Each structure stands twice: as C-alpha cells, then as structure tokens.
C-alpha cells in the first residue's frame, strides 16, 4: 500500500475504505494527515471529511491538480480630485484571510488586499500611500506598536499633501490604540480614522466594507482627531464616528459593538454619503496648531479591577515589580473595600487602604476609575472613600474617563513628567475629549 508523505499534501488522492459489502472510494484533495486520520476536501462536492487510517484499504495518488482560491489584490489608481489619504493596515479581522481548503484563518491580508474587498472607496478618496507597520491580531498589540504607529501617523499629519489617515485595526483593542494615538500626538490636525470589522472579508456579509466606505466619506469633512468608525446599528445603514477616547467595544460579536460612553458619536455617516452631526461641526474644526509627537510610554502601568473578596496584596506585587502607576477600576462611584466604617468590620486582609498607602509612599500614582463605565467617579459621597483619598488614591475631581483610557493616559503622563503634581495635573486636564465637563441624559440612554 502506498504511504502518503507530507510531500503529497495538496495532491488529489483516491482513498478506498476497508468495507465489507461495497467498495467505497473518496476522491479528494489531501489537506493534512496524522498517523490516525487523514483529512480530505472531496473533489465532487467540496465537503471536508476525515478518514481514520485504520479504515483505509488503499490510497492512490493521482496526477490531477486542483486550483486553490487566491486572494485578490488591488492596485490603487489615482484620482486627483478626491481627498488624499494614507491607508495604514495593522491586521485584525478586517485583514484576515480564510484558507478555502483548510479553513485556517490567518492574518495575512496586505493593505492592497483589504482595499480589494471594497473597491468603491476609490471613488471617494485617493489612496496616496499605503503603510503596514505590523500585521497583528489586536490582542497582541503592545505599546511599542503604538509608538511605531504614532510615528507613521505623525509623519503624515505634518505632510501637507495628505488630507487624512485611515487605519484598519483589530476591534478588540482598537480603542486602546485610538487612545494611545490621541495622547502620543498633541494637536492632531487631520482626521485619523480607526476602522475594523466584526465579520471576516470572506463573507458576503462582511461589515468592514461599510466601515471603510463611511470612513472614506468622512475624510472630506476635515475634522481633526482620532475617531473610531464602525457600524452604528445592527443594520447596514450608517456608521458612527466616535472620538476614540470615548469609544469602547461593548459587545463581543455585533457589528455595532462600539458605543460612545459618557458621550455621543460626533456624527452618523450613511452609505449614500449623507452625514448627520450630533455635535456642532464648527466647534470640531482645526485650530491650526502644529502636531507634536511625544510617544514615550511607561510600560509599568497597571489596571486592577476591584471586586468582593479581592486581595489587596496584589498591590504589593506591583510595588515589588517596580510599577509606577496603577489605575484601580473600583465599584460604583470608584469604591474600594476599606472596611473602615462598617459595624461588622471587613477582615484586615481584604482592606485596601494600607496597601494603597504603601504604594503612594513608594511614589506610585494610584488613580480611581469606575467599572460602571458610565458616569463619573466621586470620592466625596461616602465616608469610606475618604480613607482612600487620605491614603493617596486620586479621584481627580469626578472625572468620566474610561478605565482603559485612564491607563494609557497615565502611561504617557508618567514618561512626560517627573513630578507627581505634574502627572496628576495632566491626568485631570482634558487632552483629547476624554474628560467631559457635563453629562446629558442621552449619553446614557442612546448609547446602549
């Protein structure tokens, strides 16, 4: 009997089974095999099946070839009348490719390949330049990637021939990257749009196309800032443009996973080109300042979530590891278990006050945020909170920053300033719309 080897993968083979009553032969393209099982894609009907080696009577390797699917790639054409953009591909679902034979999903689409999924954007914008600093699933992105990306973005922000930047990105940490860009580059003077997809491009129901089209439409508005442009509803009708520092992925799988938190989308962009603003467009326009790149990042910055029974000695571990800043994601208004005011005292090993105190004494900046996400923290409502403030935990005068946004902002502040006071002042100050000065009912009611 012929034994198959790894050289035969991709070849067409006939597999005859050990069957008593009738002869059964499967003709298929050999996908892979182990000592136990071989996997075929059947030639007649395209189904993938697995056959146990022990059930096989005979294998015949045929001299036939099958044509495999290949990804298309688009050469961009130039149209001088349209806004010029730079397209930056960084990976993510929007840049995945399914191997049509094995079903393996790989992150391998080049920017040209992504553009080929949505050729109509070339009637809206002129892609002047394509960049791809890295191609990653977004959960693998770390601060050095933000630094690389911010350098490229900065390069084109100061290039007068460019009107805007579109970045395709995995959705999981898209808002983190958006925040990093917002704080690493001051005075952003052009639209920098982050676009992702919740359905992969192999499907006819690929949602990334609409997101790309709406982002392209929005470029001509010349509104500076870092924005997330994703589906605004479960329908394929419009995208919302949300300030990235106020956007958060709130659903694991829906197209409209991104919502504005403690804020509103600045506008809705419809597929037919219509744009409906929620905020006054004129206030969003450029103030003509020059962009400044300052992309240092303190990697020893942590985000800790508080919960009943949480062990405060985790802070000691961070102290030991040399951390410089900690964002605590507290309950409610920004609460942390202190056990100070209750009649029935919380056992000492669950009390956070002493540990926070120890951290601040070591020079670590500890800032409170809320796991409610919506609303502001407040350190003055309950007596318990004063113990945290006394221990050095910062409530920053009732800020409404998302915990993840506070984390990135702190990472940047820790490198930008030396003095604790300067760091705190920077954290208190609204840099990129991450701290709003007021909240109206719609922010919450229309968000979810």
């Amino acid at each position: 009997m012929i034994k198959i080897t790894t050289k035969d993968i991709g070849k067409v083979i006939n597999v005859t089974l050990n069957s008593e009553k009738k002869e059964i032969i499967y003709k298929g393209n050999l996908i892979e095999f182990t000592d136990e099982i071989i996997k075929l894609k059947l030639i007649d009907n395209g189904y993938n099946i697995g056959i146990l080696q022990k059930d096989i009577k005979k294998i015949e390797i045929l001299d036939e070839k099958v044509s495999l699917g290949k990804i298309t790639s688009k050469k961009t054409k130039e149209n001088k009348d349209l806004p010029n953009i730079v397209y930056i591909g960084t990976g993510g679902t929007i840049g995945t490719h399914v191997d049509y034979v094995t079903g393996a999903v790989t992150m391998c689409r080049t920017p040209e390949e992504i553009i080929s999924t949505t050729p109509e954007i070339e009637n809206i914008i002129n892609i002047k330049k394509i960049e791809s600093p890295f191609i990653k699933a977004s959960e693998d992105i770390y601060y050095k990637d933000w630094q690389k990306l911010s350098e490229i973005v900065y390069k084109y922000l100061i290039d007068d021939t460019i009107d805007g930047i579109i970045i395709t990105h995995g959705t999981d940490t898209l808002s983190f990257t958006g925040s990093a860009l917002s704080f690493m580059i001051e005075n952003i003077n052009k639209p920098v749009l982050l676009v992702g997809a919740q359905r992969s491009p192999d499907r006819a129901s690929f949602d990334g196309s609409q997101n790309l089209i709406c982002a392209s439409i929005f470029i001509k508005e010349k509104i500076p800032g870092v924005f997330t442009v994703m589906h605004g509803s479960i329908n394929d009708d419009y995208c919302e443009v949300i300030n990235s520092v106020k956007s958060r992925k709130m659903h694991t799988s829906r197209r409209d996973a991104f919502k504005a938190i403690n804020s509103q989308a600045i506008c809705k962009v419809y597929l037919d080109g219509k744009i409906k603003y929620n905020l006054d467009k004129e206030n969003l326009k450029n103030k003509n300042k020059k962009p400044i790149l300052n992309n240092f990042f303190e990697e020893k910055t942590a985000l800790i979530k508080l919960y009943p029974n949480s062990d405060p000695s985790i802070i000691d571990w961070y102290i030991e590891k040399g951390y410089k800043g900690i964002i605590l994601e507290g309950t409610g208004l920004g609460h942390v278990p202190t056990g100070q005011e209750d009649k029935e005292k919380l056992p000492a090993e669950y009390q956070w006050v002493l540990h926070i105190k120890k951290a601040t004494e070591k020079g670590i900046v500890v800032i409170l945020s809320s796991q409610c996400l919506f609303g502001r923290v407040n350190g003055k409502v309950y007596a318990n909170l004063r113990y945290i403030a006394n221990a050095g935990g910062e409530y920053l005068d009732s800020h409404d920053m998302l915990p993840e946004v506070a984390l990135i902002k702190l990472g940047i502040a820790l490198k930008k300033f030396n003095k604790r006071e300067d760091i705190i002042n920077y954290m208190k100050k609204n840099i990129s719309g991450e701290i709003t000065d007021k909240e109206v009912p719609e922010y919450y009611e229309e968000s979810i």
Partner: protein
Amino acid sequence: MITKNLDYKELGLMCGLELHQQLDTNKLFCNCRSKLIKENIKPDKIILRKLRAVSSETGDFDLTAKEEQDKKKLFKYHFYNSCNCLVESDSQPPLSINQEALKISLIISFLTNSSILNTSYVMRKQVIDGSNVSGFQRTIMISTDGYLDFDFGKVRIDKILLEEDAARAIERKDNEVTYSLDRLGIPLIELVVWHDMHTPDQVKQVAKYVGQIFRSTGKTKRGLGSIRQDINISIKEGARVEIKGCQDLESIPEIINREIIRQLSLIEIKKELLNKKISSFSLEAKEINNIFKNCDSKIVNNSFKEKKNAYLFVLPSFKGFLGKEIQPNRRLGSELANFLKIRTTLKGLFHLDELPNYGITEKEINNIKQDFSLKENDSFIIVFSSKEEIDSVKMVLEDRLNKLFLGVLKETRAVNLEFNTEYQRSLSTSSRMYPETDLSPVVFTKEILSSAKKEIPLSLNERKKLYIEKFKLSSQLTEKMSLSNYAPIFEKLVINYKINPTFLSVFLLEDLISASRENKIDLEDVSEKILIDFFSYKDIEKILPKNKFLTVFISFVNNPSFLEKYILENKKEDFSENDLKKIILDVILENKEVVITQKERAIGLIMGRVMSKTNNAFDGKLISEIAKNEILKILEKNKSF
C-alpha cells in the same frame, strides 16, 4: 408538440432525486425553537442588510447589469424574539451543532444503508441572494454510498447532508427582498438519490418511500414546505436539468413528463434549425421609438415614461419558432422572456409570433416590416430597455438563441403553477465551499453511533404487525398510524404508559388534526414532551372523561399547570352523598374532643375540614345539614354516658 405516450426506455430517461426534510428539533446552530411564525404577526425587529459579491477566485469583479443591481439590493429581515437570536442575524458566531438533529441524521443513514463518515466538517456554502443573512449556508456531510431496494431494482443513495434551512422570502421588489428569519437555521436533512430511476413512477415511489423513512423517526416537521424535492432529469440527446421545489408527490410524474416534452421540443428545434441552415444568430439592437409614437399600448407607454427605448432585434428566417409550444401552454418565446427576466432587469419581450397583441397593432408591425424590409419568414423581437442596459440585453438574448443549437442546456429550473418549468440559473458545477471557521469538526464516535442505533424506529412492516396483532388497531387506523410521524411517540405511550391504542390513534390522527384545522391548536406546539407529560399523568384515562380529552389537552398545551387544576376541580364526580356522610362522620370522630367541649360551635371547624377533604365538591349547606345532625347524635350519645 409531442403528445403521444412517452416510451421512457426508448427515451433513455434517467432521474435523480434530492429530498430536503425539516427536522422537528431546535435550530441547528443555536438554541432557538424551530417554529414558523403565522402570517400577519408583527416582527419584533426589522433588520436591514446588504450583501456584497465576494470577488471570485481569479479576482474578477466583472458583473452583469443584473448582478450589479443585485449587489445594491436591500434585504429586510423580520426578526422574531420567539424563534430568533443573534445567531440568525449574523451577529453572533454559531453555537455547536444540535445533537438531536445529528442523531436523527445518523438514524436516517442507518435506515438507508449509508456509510457514516468518521469525521466531518461544517462547511460554508456561499449564497448571496439574501436568504442566508451571513451570505452562506452551513452544511455538513453525514454519510455516503447508501442504497435502498425496490421491486424495480436497487437505488443508490449518493450522500446524506445536514444543513440549515434558509430564510423565507415574503416579499420581492426590484431593489428589495423581505425575508422572515423564522425558518433560517431549522435543521434540514438533504438526501441525494443517484439517477437510478427510469420512469416518473419510480421517482414518485422512491420519493414516497424516503419520505416515510424520514417520518418514521418521529422527529420531522409536518405540513406543506416541510419536505421539498428536487428532481434531476435527462434523456438521450438531452442534458441534466435540475428541477427545484416539487412539494407534492402526486405532481412528480406530471412535472417529469412535461420536462421530457420540453427537452424533446428543444432537440427538435435544434434539428429544424439545422435543416433551415440557420447556424448562428448575430443580433443588432435598433432603436425604434418612432414606430410607437402614436401607439395606445399601455405597456409601451409606461416603458417610455420610465425613460426606456424600444429596440428591435431582427431574426432572419426565424418566423414561427418563437411561437412554438415547447411544453403545454408554454412557447419558446416565453422561455426566452423568462431567461431575459432572470439575467437582466427587463420584465419581458414581445415577438412577432404573438403579435398583434398587448395594444401593439397590425399598423406598427407593418411599419417595422417596411422600415426594415423584412422578408416573409423573418421574425423579430422587441424589447424596452434603458440605453445603458441594451448591450447586455443583446448579449443575453444572443447567447440564449445561439444555445438553441445545443438543444437542451444543463440548468436549474423551477416548477411553476402549471407544472411547467422556468429557468432559474445555470447548473453550478461546484458551489464555493469552505470550512466554517467558528466550529470544531464533528466526530462520530462509537458512543454516538450506538446511541443513535438504539433509537432506530421500527420498519413500516414491523409497525403494521405490531399495531394489528398487539395493539388490535383496525386495519384502517393501522395504515394511517404506521405512516404518521406520531408513530414512535404513539408506540411509546401505548407500551410505557398503557394508553388505549385505538383511543390514542383517533386522538392523534383525527381529533388533533381537526382541532388544528379549526385553529384551536397549533400542531407545532404538540411536542413529544407535551404528549408524554399529558398522557403520563396518573390514570389520566380513568380520571378524564373521554369527551373532555381534547379541550383539556388544548388548554394543557398552552398552560401545563391546567391539568392538575382541572382534575382537582372536577373530582366531585367521584364522591356520592353516601361518601360525604362517611367523610363527615370520620372528621367528627377525629375531632371528638373539640365537638364535646365546643358543642354546636364546632360546626365551623368540621365544615372546613370536610370541604378540604372533598375538594370543595359539595354545597356548604348540604355539609352543614349533615354535620349538624351527626354532631347532635354524638352529643346525645355522650349525654347518656
């Protein structure tokens, strides 16, 4: 037209079959109920989506005008919270495959002697007509190489697949299709029968038998549309044509015969064209708006209003061909028009053989003949098209006319109301399939196979024997019950719960059906669990009067706690007045002390106890009278001590 009896052997008729049967389990890739929504029920949400043509493997985006239009189509999906979730709206990855549906497909594989695969992968089959929100249908191969024996010979089963049913189209407009999502995701068994059938009757016989196998599992859906058959037909000199959507067994022979006639007619036309030395068509579109300047035809004038032009295609020496009947009441012209409708945005065409008609008069026809100096045996086609689309209209018409030289074409056709068939699409050689990336492979382990084996239902003959000999059913009820998909549950109820077989079969086959006809009950709600819960109620047959069964059952289906309540409330029939007297006496004796100390005042306590013991079956007045009497008797007795 050929009307003589068809000699199938002489014709070399070969037919294959594809049967699609919905299963009565939850949906294939989520936990939603497989329930169809009744008409006129408002959806909980309407979801709007678009699908994109995915570039072909060679990277082409070259689309016909029609395909361009399809690309812009808006799909409206009616979403019902009762039978949909985010999975059907393509907003959540699929959950793992429904195990019950998998088991039923294994049972059907066993019953058709098919070889079950060891490992199989859920595949995505691309579908972009909107009927699948995701743009693909999920499908998995279960088994291959089966067979069934018939008196006319062995029929091979090519393969058995398990797939998700598509969404149900409820309204089609030019740029918009509305689908109901209720049907999307219902498990569908597809059984493919090899083309081993050689007469229409054999096809009917096989379809009927396979249908019986499906139903014998007791886990199939009932009602129109729950089973659908596609038939493959070819004859000598013809080609394989797939006919979709035959829902009714009885119409199968008629559909096949009409298709044979169509194929024979096309073969004949091909020969006639050769005889007339016509060897190809080369069309040229001529704009003829001026011909219709003063025409009264509504169709013509409406077309002009829509900014369409009239175009003429001259067909030399073609007179009479387009008017040829190729199927009863269907002409070659209709075939061409139907093709044009599918491939372009046009609604149809006019041809000389059917004119004058539709408000187009002899005058216009003569003008055309004169203006273009047509010969006596020349023919023509008139279409109303936009300037932009006329080139593709020309291409489509020319292509189809030139294919007349090939005779019959391999294609997929749909059955219309007269059992003729209409062009649907060209026969896709192999649709684009790739593995579903969100699911793990299905492995048919020994454990899974043996648990399915245990549930293999009785064969039809075994069933009949059991019903007649053991259950003592009449031959008429046996015939009906053995073919019903209630059969497995019927057997379970008779054997395990000792329900009277005749009573139960009348209840299932007649009472329920007529109640459903009167809209008193939705048969979709009558699940196996409901039936078992109801009939397993202790002594149900003794407690419940026969004439109350159906009404109580109907209420039970809607509210399972109803049965308990009903039985308690109606228990009084079990107590006679004599029983009551005895119960009262017992209660008094149990509470003798109280009676002696409290005397007549004890009546309240006694009454309360009695009423609860008799489930409030008696009038309070009656109890009070008897109780008073008995208390007095006791007190009297006590005095004497």
